[in-house]
């Protein structure tokens, strides 16, 4: 890896580890301080490496600088609190605990951080922004880009979240065994939303979108590796993510544009991720309860089979029928209607679609346009036109214009 790429790469992999470990040492209320020290460590690398050359072991170099900075900070704090002369402090420095950057402590700290960031007292959207910042090492601009928002909004959201952390005295620790299931639910929702943000986001930056998804998978893997959180819901969420992520190589064409499911080359689907998803789905299927993650994972599983069979669409339809009963969303309602078309025929799907009342949704009109295509051309055209008026992304507008031209 060339030097200009090396530091951003290390930032993505090491910043979050340093922040988590520093936070564990200084206390979660000192999140800003932890981020500052981690950030300063990278600044030191930027100042030194171009002139003195990249050290043999760049990560070890970063860790040793971070350790020094942490020790100096502790000394300053002690100096501030105890008002002891610097000379005395130097003598006590031997007893200053060294920053523990062992793999084990990094893992523990990140897991604790995940639970602290996804605390129910923090609003959902702030949990996600904070997780992307301190657990994934995303820059504020990247987060703003992913959410189609601006720098100021995200910065404000982050600082409000940190304020809340202090107000609520949220500490970095794993919830007790009795409370873990409830806290896990909040964490899973945030990871699910981070993944969806990447998978369905309207931002055009495909690399950033895939990064979001892969980060969500990495954080979910942390929960799987920790036995108390290796539960059916966690595995179901993981299965869902793996099945979806298996299509990444087929989702973009040579020009970097999104390729729709029906047009994808299934030979490009990542079979190892599909098997990994199947393994987690199997592990998710213990016990009697099922969550929306189970149902969505089941739907995603059937989508890894490209062939259009009656069995496939009947299964997808029944999974959507159940999903909508526990978690309604307009997207699920539209997809259910599509599955109804494939399983029960167009006439039944048209009747169901006309009941949905999603007139403001561009995909609703796209679906109706398709459903009416061979029975009522005028109606089909009118729906495609309404869809075009409502479409928000360039890719959707292009796709609808193509359909209109073909009528």
């Amino acid at each position, binding site marked *: 890896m060339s030097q200009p790429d090396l530091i951003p790469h290390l930032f993505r992999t090491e910043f979050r580890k340093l922040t988590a470990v520093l936070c564990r040492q200084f206390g979660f209320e000192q999140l800003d301080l932890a981020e500052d020290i981690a950030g300063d460590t990278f600044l030191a690398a930027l100042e030194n490496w171009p002139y003195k050359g990249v050290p043999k072991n760049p990560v070890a170099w970063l860790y040793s600088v971070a350790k020094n900075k942490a020790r100096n900070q502790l000394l300053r704090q002690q100096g501030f609190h105890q008002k002891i002369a610097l000379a005395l402090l130097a003598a006590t420095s031997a007893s200053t605990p060294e920053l523990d950057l062992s793999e084990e402590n990094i893992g523990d700290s990140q897991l604790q951080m995940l639970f602290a960031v996804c605390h129910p007292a923090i609003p959902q959207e702030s949990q996600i922004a904070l997780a992307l910042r301190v657990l994934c090492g995303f820059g504020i601009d990247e987060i703003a880009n992913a959410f189609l928002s601006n720098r100021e909004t995200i910065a404000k959201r982050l600082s409000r979240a940190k304020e809340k952390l202090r107000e609520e005295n949220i500490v970095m620790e794993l919830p007790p065994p009795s409370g873990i299931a409830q806290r896990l639910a909040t964490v899973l929702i945030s990871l699910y939303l981070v993944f969806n943000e990447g998978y369905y986001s309207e931002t055009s930056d495909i690399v950033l979108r895939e990064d979001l998804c892969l980060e969500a998978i990495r954080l979910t893997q942390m929960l799987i590796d920790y036995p108390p959180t290796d539960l059916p819901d966690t595995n179901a969420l993981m299965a869902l993510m793996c099945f979806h992520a298996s299509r990444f190589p087929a989702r973009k064409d040579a020009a970097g544009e999104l390729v729709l499911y029906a047009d994808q080359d299934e030979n490009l689907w990542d079979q190892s991720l599909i098997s990994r998803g199947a393994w987690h789905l199997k592990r998710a299927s213990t016990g009697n309860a099922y969550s929306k993650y189970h149902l969505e994972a089941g739907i995603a599983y059937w989508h890894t089979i490209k062939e259009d069979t009656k069995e496939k669409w009947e299964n997808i339809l029944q999974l959507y*029928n159940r999903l*909508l009963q526990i978690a*309604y969303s307009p997207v699920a*309602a539209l997809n259910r209607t599509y599955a109804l078309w494939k399983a029960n025929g167009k006439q039944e799907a048209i009747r169901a679609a006309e009941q*949905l*009342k999603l007139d403001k949704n561009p995909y609703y009109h796209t679906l109706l346009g398709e459903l009416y295509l061979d029975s009522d051309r005028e109606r089909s055209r009118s729906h495609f036109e309404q869809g075009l008026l409502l479409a928000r992304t360039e890719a959707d507008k292009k796709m609808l214009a193509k359909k209109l031209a073909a009528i």
Partner: protein
Amino acid sequence: MDEYMLIFRHQDGSKLASPEQMQVWMKQTMDWIGGIAAQNKYVGGHGLSFDNARTVGHGGVVTNGPFGDIKETLGGYIIVKAASPDEAAEFAKGSPILQGEGNTIEVRRMAH
């Protein structure tokens, strides 16, 4: 928007259906409920098992099953959100239960 209970009344619950017929009904019921849920109007529901039922009468007299003197029995219910009793009745019309001769669905607004 009020909540309505759609109560399934079966004319003769003791009549046995073939497994194939049961499967068709099951799919139709799931598709019917899914259609209501897709409109964000489904609240909840349950089927009621015909097996091992008891009827407790005046004076605490217990008889097995709901099929003593009466032929009509309850098969289950769902609860839906609807703007009017007519809208709730429209939902009921789609139910496969009504394919059975003599079966009815009673639509009742939930009292708060």
